[in-house]
């Protein structure tokens, strides 16, 4: 820039003619705190001959001044209040300012630098006007007065402000002109020529336009930091003027850096704070909704109250009793679960609801609610699962028809055992889970016998997300929600017990086999239950009975006959069924007293240890103690009873206890796909000896033929010779 400036200046000089020179020199020689001033002054000189944009870097004015005459030393003297050294303080701003000056047709208006500049410009202009005798008019006078004010101590910002106000109106026009000016000097010259020839009235507007251009330039936002020079300089000067440091000029760079740093620190703070606490607040918000929902009950309160009484159990009471046993989730957490259950009963048509327990997972836990819907309010998803099964069967049949030519495999996939109807057997209850009280409840799908069968063979931790796939051998048909449901079914069947007599069968049924086959799966609360002594409950396991149907190895509670066979075979199977039932006590088979529910004393032992541990909750105050039952087969399953009331709960990982380590099942042997008969015989590959023998035989045969040929040839030859 600096090198080119003298060239430009020369060009401009030539264009301007000589009249402009002295003014230029005055402009250049005057040292303003912001070099823009001097440059503006340069431009100002042109109005007499037309303001011409000059691309002279700030440094050049001095050098220019040095090289040129100094006719207007007085002007310089007047300007001496501005520390000359300040011109070098803004090297970065100089070149842009120089560019800006190119656009100065009229006194440009820029705050701070340019405002001072404009002041100088206007003052210079005023002087120039006077000198050039262009005719005074109000603008000149204004300029003059501004020039006078300009001489006032420059440390006060007020004159700067005044100019700024004046210049604001015209600043908008500058942007466009700025661009135009940059492109074409000749155009500028043209513009300049116009006011040049025009009256002095036009000149101020040109000055204004130039000021506006400069200001617009200074307001341009940096692409890197988002700051703009205008604001930065104003902030800097504000700081300087507020603090009034000594030797401000020496520390002005530091002040500039400090001002820039102040911009950044604010943003970081807000980011950090927001990230950290968000999750806590989220949960708190959700749980707040739980607490507030009570206030939203409308006019249906009466109806809902009736049902709600039955539906929502008194969890706090059960929690109190469990706490006596040393089991529980803590009072606050239990209360939140209570509220979450209330929310569940409010949103779904639920007949009965019970807090089943909590299953721990790797990432999140599950809170499980056991629910019974009102009559007729069942979900309709049952049919969907049957349909794909039928389709599969159809497909396999079609394939078999097409491939009649190929040998037919013996293999027939075992028919899928249909799952039990809802409200019966393992699907008697519907289960809802949520990860934390406050989160939405998710309904678990009904369980199929296949899932139970395979769940018995695998042992996997729950992750806490319902859609996690279960990768195991044997492959589990489903994802985590199915596995969870299967485990819940197994735990319920294995550990839900009640004191003897609490439940009984509603109707009288005989002990006929047929009815045993169909299974007694309905029971009712015994209204005549008078309670069992707590001591009795602790001492003898026969005082407790299972009230959930046992799950057969098939995976169902009620036997399903998968194969349609003749009557004889059915009878055989019946016998088998009964035998099985004898081995694994069905809930309803054995009778002990009036209720027909199996006492837990009949449960199988685990390697000589009883499957249940009974305890009195407190040895110190036995009068009010309750009986606590702890399952050894499913660690985490508890039941308590104070004689009249009872409750079951499960809190644990969801796995069965086995003293031996888990061993994954072995894959079955390879199935023989088709019979080996005359048509299809798999031949063994020839052994090495056989191959060699064969090859030798071949070679021998080849040799013999060769020999024959040779002899023939020889004979032929002999013949020929003959």
């Amino acid at each position, binding site marked *: 820039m600096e090198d080119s400036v003298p060239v430009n200046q020369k060009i401009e000089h030539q264009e301007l003619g000589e009249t402009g020179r002295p003014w230029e020199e005055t402009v250049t020689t005057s040292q303003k705190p912001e070099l823009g001033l001097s440059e503006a002054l340069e431009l100002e000189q042109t109005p007499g001959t037309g303001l011409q944009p000059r691309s002279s870097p700030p440094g050049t004015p001095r050098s220019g001044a040095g090289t040129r005459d100094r006719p207007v030393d007085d002007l310089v003297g007047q300007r001496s209040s501005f520390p000359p050294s300040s011109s070098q303080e803004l090297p970065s701003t100089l070149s842009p300012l120089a560019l800006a000056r190119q656009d100065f047709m009229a006194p440009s208006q820029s705050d701070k630098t340019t405002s001072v500049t404009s002041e100088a410009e206007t003052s210079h202009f005023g002087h120039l006007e006077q000198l050039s005798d262009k005719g005074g008019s109000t603008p000149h006078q204004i300029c003059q007065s501004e020039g006078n004010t300009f001489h006032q101590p420059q440390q006060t910002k007020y004159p700067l402000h005044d100019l700024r106000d004046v210049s604001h109106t015209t600043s908008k026009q500058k942007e466009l002109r700025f661009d135009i000016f940059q492109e074409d000097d000749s155009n500028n010259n043209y513009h300049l020529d116009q006011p040049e020839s025009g009256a002095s009235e036009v000149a101020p507007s040109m000055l204004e336009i130039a000021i506006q251009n400069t200001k617009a330039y200074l307001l341009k936002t940096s692409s890197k930091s988002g700051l703009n020079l205008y604001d930065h300089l104003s902030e800097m000067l504000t700081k300087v003027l507020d603090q009034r440091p000594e030797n401000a000029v020496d520390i002005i760079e530091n002040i500039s850096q400090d001002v820039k740093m102040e911009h950044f620190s604010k943003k970081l703070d807000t980011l950090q704070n927001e990230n*950290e*606490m968000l*999750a*806590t*607040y*989220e*949960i*708190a918000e959700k749980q707040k909704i739980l607490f507030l929902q009570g206030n939203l009950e409308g006019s249906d309160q009466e109806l809902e109250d009736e049902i709600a009484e039955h539906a929502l159990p008194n969890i706090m009471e059960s929690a109190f009793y469990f*706490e*006596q*046993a*040393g*089991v*529980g*989730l*803590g009072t606050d*957490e239990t209360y939140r679960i209570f509220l979450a259950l209330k929310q569940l009963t409010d949103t779904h048509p639920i007949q009965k609801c019970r807090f089943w327990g*909590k299953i*721990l*997972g*790797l*990432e*999140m*836990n599950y809170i499980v609610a056991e629910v019974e819907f009102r009559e007729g309010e069942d979900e309709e998803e049952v049919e969907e699962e049957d349909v794909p099964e039928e389709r599969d069967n159809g497909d396999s049949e079609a394939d078999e028809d097409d491939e009649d030519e190929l040998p037919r495999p013996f293999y027939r996939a075992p028919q899928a055992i249909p799952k039990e109807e809802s409200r019966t057997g393992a699907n008697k209850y519907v289960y809802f889970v949520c990860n*934390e009280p406050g989160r939405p409840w998710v309904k678990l799908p009904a369980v199929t016998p296949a899932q139970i069968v395979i769940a018995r063979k*695998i*042992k*996997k*931790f729950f992750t806490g997300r319902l859609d996690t796939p279960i990768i195991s051998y044997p492959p589990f048909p489903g994802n985590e929600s199915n596995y969870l449901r299967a485990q819940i079914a197994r735990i319920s069947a294995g550990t839900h017990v009640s004191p003897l007599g609490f439940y009984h069968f509603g109707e009288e049924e005989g002990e006929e086999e047929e009815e045993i086959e169909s299974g007694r799966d309905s029971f009712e609360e015994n209204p005549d239950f008078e309670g069992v002594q707590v001591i009795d409950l602790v001492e003898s396991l026969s005082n407790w009975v299972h009230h959930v149907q046992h799950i057969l190895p098939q995976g169902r509670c009620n036997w399903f006959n998968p194969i349609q066979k003749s009557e004889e075979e059915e009878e055989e199977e019946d016998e088998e069924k009964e035998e099985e039932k004898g081995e694994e006590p069905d809930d309803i088979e054995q009778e002990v007293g009036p209720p027909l529910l199996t006492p837990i004393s009949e449960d199988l032992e685990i*390697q000589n*240890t*009883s499957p249940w*541990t009974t305890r009195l*909750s*407190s*040895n*110190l*105050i036995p009068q009010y103690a309750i009986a606590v039952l*702890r399952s*050894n087969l499913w*660690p*985490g399953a508890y039941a308590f009873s104070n004689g009249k009331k009872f409750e079951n709960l499960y*809190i*644990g*990982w969801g*796995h069965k*206890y086995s*003293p031996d*380590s*888990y061993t*994954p099942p072995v894959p079955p042997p390879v199935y023989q796909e088709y019979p080996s008969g005359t048509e299809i015989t798999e031949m063994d590959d020839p052994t090495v000896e056989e191959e060699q023998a064969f090859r030798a035989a071949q070679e021998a045969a080849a040799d013999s033929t060769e020999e024959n040929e040779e002899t023939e040839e020889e004979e032929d030859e002999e013949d020929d010779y003959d």
Partner: protein
Amino acid sequence: MDAESLLLSLELASGSGQGLSPDRRASLLTSLMLVKRDYRFDRVLFWGRILGLVADYYIAQGVSEDQLAPRKTLYSLNCMEWSLLPPATEEMEMQTSVVKGRFIGDPSHEYEHTELQKVNEGKKVFEEEVVVQIKEEKRLVSVIDQIDKAVAVIPRGALFKTPFGPINVNRTFEGLSLSEAKKLSSYFHFREPVELKNKTLLEKAELDPSLDFMDSLEHDIPKGSWSVQMERGNALVVLRSLLWPGLTFYHAPRTKNYGYIYVGTGEKNLDLPFML
């Protein structure tokens, strides 16, 4: 967990489901005070509860001035009368490793285990079946020791090491920050370091010798044997061991509350690799 903050600690650890009944809690509060006075411990920790078939063992540990010195273990059946257990030895551990199954709950119960032992008689070597009797007390001692060595957890910064050697409680420990609390590397095994020497120089350069003098949980085998969860929003971080199910470590970030408790059957989960 520290006996002094027993109630709060039990509340915080209640997420695992197993806790203490009110009468046990009340008895513990009083009896642990007496234990601390009688045995002149610096701190008494309530270690946990081992569930037996007939009765449960309540275990407490006493810590002396040096936090990493071997702790004295006491057990009680009723939370009132405490008996000191002998320190664990390797021989004990070998003997009791053959015993499987649940604890009975009677410390004098003896497990019978038949072993084939080689007996030298003169020049003949033949095997005899020897019935070895192992007392449950021994088994208790070795199980507690195994659990301590394997899964006792302490957050980083809770203890500090002085140049003279003894390890002290860090009174300026204000709790882990939220981002640190979610990482396994901010928790250490509460035992003498085993793997620290195997670290490369590069890793050691980043460690602070006064705080990082124990093994972190990060490199435990098998990977994933710890479950880290945030409960109550982000107000509580709970670590559960999957290798010894029943061990729960809790810490409320940015507070000084932390501790671990074991409530379980006292059996290692050997099926862990299948379950992950």
